[in-house]
């Protein structure tokens, strides 16, 4: 192990939030966010994922991408737990505006209000938007 990596071991842990506001597959945002989230896991930071507006569509169950010849990344959300990324927050208002409930989502999440989401965003050290 290099000296640089040793320094990282004792590094500062910051609060990172990834804010997801785009529907999956139509644009690359959702997949790119997921890639960066997985990279961030390697740095042992305090990571939270927020799903707001069309971002809640990223967590839909029963995704079948066979017909559009794109790889589905739905199952990756389930794997996040294995990388110690367990803080997934979904905004209640966004879900309701799309006729969705918690049962429609592929992973266990914490459903919180817009106001509570605002508080969470407020207490982060770094916020990354997708």
């Amino acid at each position, binding site marked *: 192990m290099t000296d640089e990596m040793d320094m990282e071991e004792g590094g500062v842990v910051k609060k990172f939030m990834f804010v997801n506001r785009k529907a*999956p*597959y139509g644009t690359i945002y959702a997949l790119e966010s997921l890639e960066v989230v997985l990279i961030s896991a390697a740095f042992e930071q305090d990571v939270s994922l927020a799903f707001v507006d*069309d971002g809640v569509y990223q967590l*839909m169950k029963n995704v*079948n991408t066979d017909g*559009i010849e*794109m790889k589905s990344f739905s199952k990756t959300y389930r794997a996040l737990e294995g990388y110690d990324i367990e803080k997934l927050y979904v905004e209640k208002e966004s879900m309701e*505006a*799309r006729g969705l409930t918690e049962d429609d989502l592929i992973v266990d999440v914490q459903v919180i209000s817009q106001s509570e989401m605002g508080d969470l965003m407020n207490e982060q050290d770094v916020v990354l938007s997708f």
Partner: protein
Amino acid sequence: MLHIVNKSPSDRNSVDTCLGHVKPGSAVLFIEDAVYAATKGTVAEAKVKAVMPGVAVYVLEPDLNARGMQGRVLDGVKLVDYGGFVDLVTEHSTCQSWL
């Protein structure tokens, strides 16, 4: 005329503007992120239902399935596959894409 929309109704106003311009006898096809407009409980639901008496509304099934939205489609909206998409284009003299 065939109107084609590919943007989410809760992200852009493309669906809204399209539905505001569409005339009876025309058809609307929702593809890509616009498939959400054809599902229940969204901001677009009332507006889609409002045009449906005179306008045929279609949704591209592969895009619907890719988003896990199968089984949530509004009553009266017809599902088409890629072959059906091509048929719609040939059946109408003109197409307009609302990007």
